[in-house]
């Protein structure tokens, strides 16, 4: 099969089953295949034979689930597709020419049929398939998802076009599942540029990758995607933004570049030894169990609960292994796809660096789930300004907005002390003025008395001397 694909299916006559098919379809083709033949002049006879029946809009096949599986294949679309040089049998090798169309082959559901066809894709598209197997989509399927996409959900095998072909963005398969996000994208700076200029602007897969698609909130994959096109972004930010590198580490791009987006603080559980985000092990749901135990009233974790939780995670791997890495991000995928023109991006530091700033009103604790998607638990916003959480959220700090409240109180007390001590001292000094003057007068008197006595003594000594 694999070899056949490699050789684009032109060596089919070497196989006996193909010879039978050839004979059967030659007969059918000679009678009913005139239209298919006209459109599919580039196709081999075998394919034309198949298309002579399938290039018709029929009632389709009723599946066990009750769904109708369309059997129609447009010859025109097939000829224009990337698979035009792949023979039908390369993928549908299970079809027996003798019984095809005569005997009903039971199929449970469309999903089952699509699942069963996956191996055909793998045979030729090994690299992409391997990447796909590492994706969040494949992980969801392993987890039993009935919605996560399989190959043909995104790539219709009979119409699939070259990625070099610029298709209208409405043909993007991602929109089938991520409709709201796609609608937001279509109106944002990238979507509008894609519509206007075609491939110069990114489409979904340019940032999220087509096959190895990962949960967007995992790691720094999306930021890397931004920087792969906006190569000078770091340098340009350094020109005006103090601590630019730190901003790049702790803030996702849409936080500033989607000015209408809602934002929040994401405290990620992070392995400080392996230097990566901590993932929940499949089948061992510790995160939910521990967070629920620490937050029985579901009010969000407070500083003590957060500290205990970290301690529990550290028991698994050693003190200081598990830490929290704070990050400012937008609330949802829709928010992340409301990117505006550069001139409208947030540049006002006040947006984040003052007490009560909107991005810090919502805090969440995150672990990466077994499929890579984040599992979250709410955290009380006060954690960010609590002295007790200094150790827990030690890696996240935004000047002004997450300042520790107790230090504000200390500043006021020290200032009051620093002002009142001199005022008090001056007041006492003023009150003691009369005492001081009296004592000074006594000292002067005592001194002059001593001086008089000294003078008398001197005089006496002089008199004695003169005698």
């Amino acid at each position: 099969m694999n070899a056949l694909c490699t050789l684009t299916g032109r060596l089919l006559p070497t196989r006996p089953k193909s010879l039978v098919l050839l004979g059967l379809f030659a007969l059918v083709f000679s009678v009913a295949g005139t239209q298919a033949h006209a459109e599919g002049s580039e196709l081999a006879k075998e394919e034309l034979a198949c298309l002579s029946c399938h290039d018709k809009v029929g009632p389709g096949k009723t599946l066990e689930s009750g769904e109708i599986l369309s059997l129609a294949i447009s010859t025109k679309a097939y000829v224009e597709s990337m698979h035009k040089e792949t023979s039908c049998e390369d993928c549908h090798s299970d079809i027996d020419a003798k019984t095809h169309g005569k005997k009903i082959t039971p199929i449970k559901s469309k999903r089952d049929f699509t699942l069963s066809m996956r191996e055909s894709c793998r045979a030729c598209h090994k690299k992409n398939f391997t990447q796909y197997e590492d994706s969040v989509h494949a992980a969801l399927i392993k987890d039993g998802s009935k919605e996560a996409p399989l190959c043909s959900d995104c790539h219709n095998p009979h119409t699939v076009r070259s990625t070099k072909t610029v298709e209208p963005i409405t043909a993007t398969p991602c929109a089938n599942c991520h409709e709201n996000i796609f609608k937001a994208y279509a109106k944002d700076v990238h979507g509008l540029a894609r519509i206007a200029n075609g491939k110069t602007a990114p489409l979904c897969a340019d940032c999220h990758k087509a096959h190895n698609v990962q949960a967007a909130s995992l790691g720094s994959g999306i930021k890397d995607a931004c920087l792969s096109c906006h190569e000078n972004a770091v340098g340009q930010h350094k020109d005006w933004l103090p601590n630019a590198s730190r901003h790049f580490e702790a803030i996702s791009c849409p936080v500033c570049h989607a000015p209408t987006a809602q934002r929040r603080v994401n405290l990620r559980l992070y392995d400080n030894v392996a230097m990566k985000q901590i993932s929940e092990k499949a089948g061992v749901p510790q995160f939910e169990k521990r967070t629920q135990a620490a937050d029985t009233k579901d009010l969000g974790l407070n500083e003590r609960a957060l500290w205990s939780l970290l301690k529990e995670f550290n028991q698994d791997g050693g003190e200081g292994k598990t830490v929290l890495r704070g990050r400012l991000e937008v609330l949802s995928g829709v928010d992340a796809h409301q990117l505006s023109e550069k001139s409208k991006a947030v540049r006002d530091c006040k947006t984040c660096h003052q007490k009560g700033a909107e991005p810090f009103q919502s805090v969440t604790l995150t672990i990466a789930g077994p499929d890579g998607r984040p599992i979250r638990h709410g955290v009380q916003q006060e954690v960010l300004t609590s002295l007790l959480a200094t150790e827990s959220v030690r890696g996240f700090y935004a000047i002004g907005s997450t300042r520790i409240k107790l230090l504000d109180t200390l500043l006021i007390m020290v200032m009051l002390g620093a002002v009142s001590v001199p005022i008090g001292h001056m007041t006492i000094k003023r009150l003691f003025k009369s005492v001081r003057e009296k004592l000074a007068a006594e000292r002067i008197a005592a001194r002059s008395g001593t001086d008089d006595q000294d003078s008398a003594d001197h005089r006496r000594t002089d008199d004695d001397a003169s005698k």
Partner: protein
Amino acid sequence: MQKLYINPLPVRIWHWTNAFGFVLLIATGLQIRYLDLIQLVSFRTAVVAHNWIGFVLIANFFVWLSFYLFTDKIKVYHPELSPMKYFRASFRQMQFYGYGIFKGDPNPHHPSAYRKFNALQSMMYQIIMMLLVPLQFFTGVLLWDVSRFSAMVEMFGGVRVVDTVHVLLFILFSGFIIVHVYLASLGHTPSAHFKAMITGYEEIEDEPKHGTSS
């Protein structure tokens, strides 16, 4: 009235640069931390100014350090090695500020070119100049570029810990400056010590036989 040269030019330059610098650092620091309350300049301007002034003061610190390291004036910072002597002198000084000064008692400390600090000043300035000021500069530099010094920031417990130390010292220095100015006004005239830090010459009252009034 005698005149004693106790503040050499490099010390005076360092002192006033440091004084004005610290006031500006406190002002910009307040603006950075309390943007919701103070908005004299933009946040960014305050941050940039704070960074620059910080670096000027770090350079200025080395002016001070070099002067004392390479001249015999370092003796003014030599600690009193006898604890009994030191505590007795400290107690006398505290007694003067807390009681004797109200009665017009003379200051128990008699400055000289190599002993210009009283026992309390001597201890306080050693702690401030050799520990607290360098620590403030150090944490400031870490916060200036957190990413560049991320390993060190992490070693000290993370950016929140480093910032907390920086703010604690800021609070301490803010209080210190107010008290320092007041104490400087307690010379034989309110402006005597200020003049001394401008001209270099401290006016020393003639020693009376049985004390003086103030």
